[in-house]
């Protein structure tokens, strides 16, 4: 996670499109990754990323710098993604069947070759993260991929620090269990 330079933010607040293009380039991978983890659809994630930056452009003059810019940006991003997810669920039915609580992650398929197992471990873990419930996915992504501390994640999502920790602990426990089960098959 990279906090934008203060002068870049100031130029964006003064409606400088070139400066805003720099800001978008700096931050778009973080926003897109978050959107992809929540929505799990590259096209939807790209569309909502575009919408998020348009909202940021409109809201930037009101940003007073009371929080970090990235906290403010990710709050807008998380809210936009969660709202879009609700809309998609209304359009296409209820909760996706492949969403499971952290405790109920399935066991890994046994792999006969340790080398292959090592190579596929990351993909396996992220595949398992993809199947976690939305709140867990959000917290895990913000913590590991965006590098946000627990207190910052709590501010972004508007939930208590204890809840963030609980989500992280449960997710890590479930994923560690998955790794151990997988390792036993090797």
């Amino acid at each position, binding site marked *: 996670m990279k906090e934008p330079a203060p002068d870049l933010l100031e130029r964006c607040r003064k409606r400088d499109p070139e400066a805003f293009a720099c800001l978008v380039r700096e931050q778009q991978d973080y926003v897109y990754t978050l959107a*992809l983890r929540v929505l799990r659809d590259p096209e939807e994630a790209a569309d909502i990323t575009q919408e998020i930056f348009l909202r940021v452009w409109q809201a930037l003059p009101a940003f007073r710098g009371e929080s970090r810019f990235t906290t403010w940006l990710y709050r807008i991003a998380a809210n936009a993604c969660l709202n879009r997810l609700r809309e998609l669920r209304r359009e296409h039915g209820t909760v996706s069947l492949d969403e499971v609580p952290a405790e109920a992650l399935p066991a890994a398929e046994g792999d006969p070759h340790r080398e292959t197992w090592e190579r596929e471990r990351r993909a396996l*873990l992220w595949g398992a993260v993809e199947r976690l419930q939305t709140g867990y996915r959000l917290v895990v992504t913000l913590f590991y991929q965006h590098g946000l501390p627990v207190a910052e994640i709590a501010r972004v999502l508007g939930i208590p620090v204890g809840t963030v920790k609980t989500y992280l602990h449960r997710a890590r426990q479930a994923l560690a269990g998955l790794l151990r089960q997988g390792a036993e098959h090797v």
Partner: protein
Amino acid sequence: MCEEIRQAILEHTLEGEPIAPDSPLGAHLRQCPDCQRYHEAIVQVDTALQAMPLQAAPSWIVERVLARIEPNREQPFLPWTVWVPLLSLFAGLAWAYAAFVWARSAQIAPTVAVWPTQLEIWLSTHQGALGALSLSVVLGLIFSVLGVGVGFYVGRERRATAER
């Protein structure tokens, strides 16, 4: 006992701090293979998740965002999707008018003053010139309509692209 230790492992490793071997937690890990494996698995999970790269956003996002915010900043007096059809319209009308004036000065077309009393006489004597005049006027009008149509179509496509 092990349940509490595992909770402590989760808390401790979340902050990225290594467990000191001489701490009570470290002492337990040395004598409990299950908790040792649990600790290793948690560290592996943390390492693997931290190593996962960000997903690269599609390159068109910046262009589309700029396309939707830049009209607010540098709006020309008239966008080209308006002035091109307008220019076509004026050019077409000018062409038609010029053809009419030329034909009148060459006395091959009826003047407005004599219209329509001498029209029938004129039509009977200048059928070829009338054809040329009509062709010029019609071409001018087609030119105008085409310009307006192309401008309208391109403008609509550009708006649709920007909205996508």
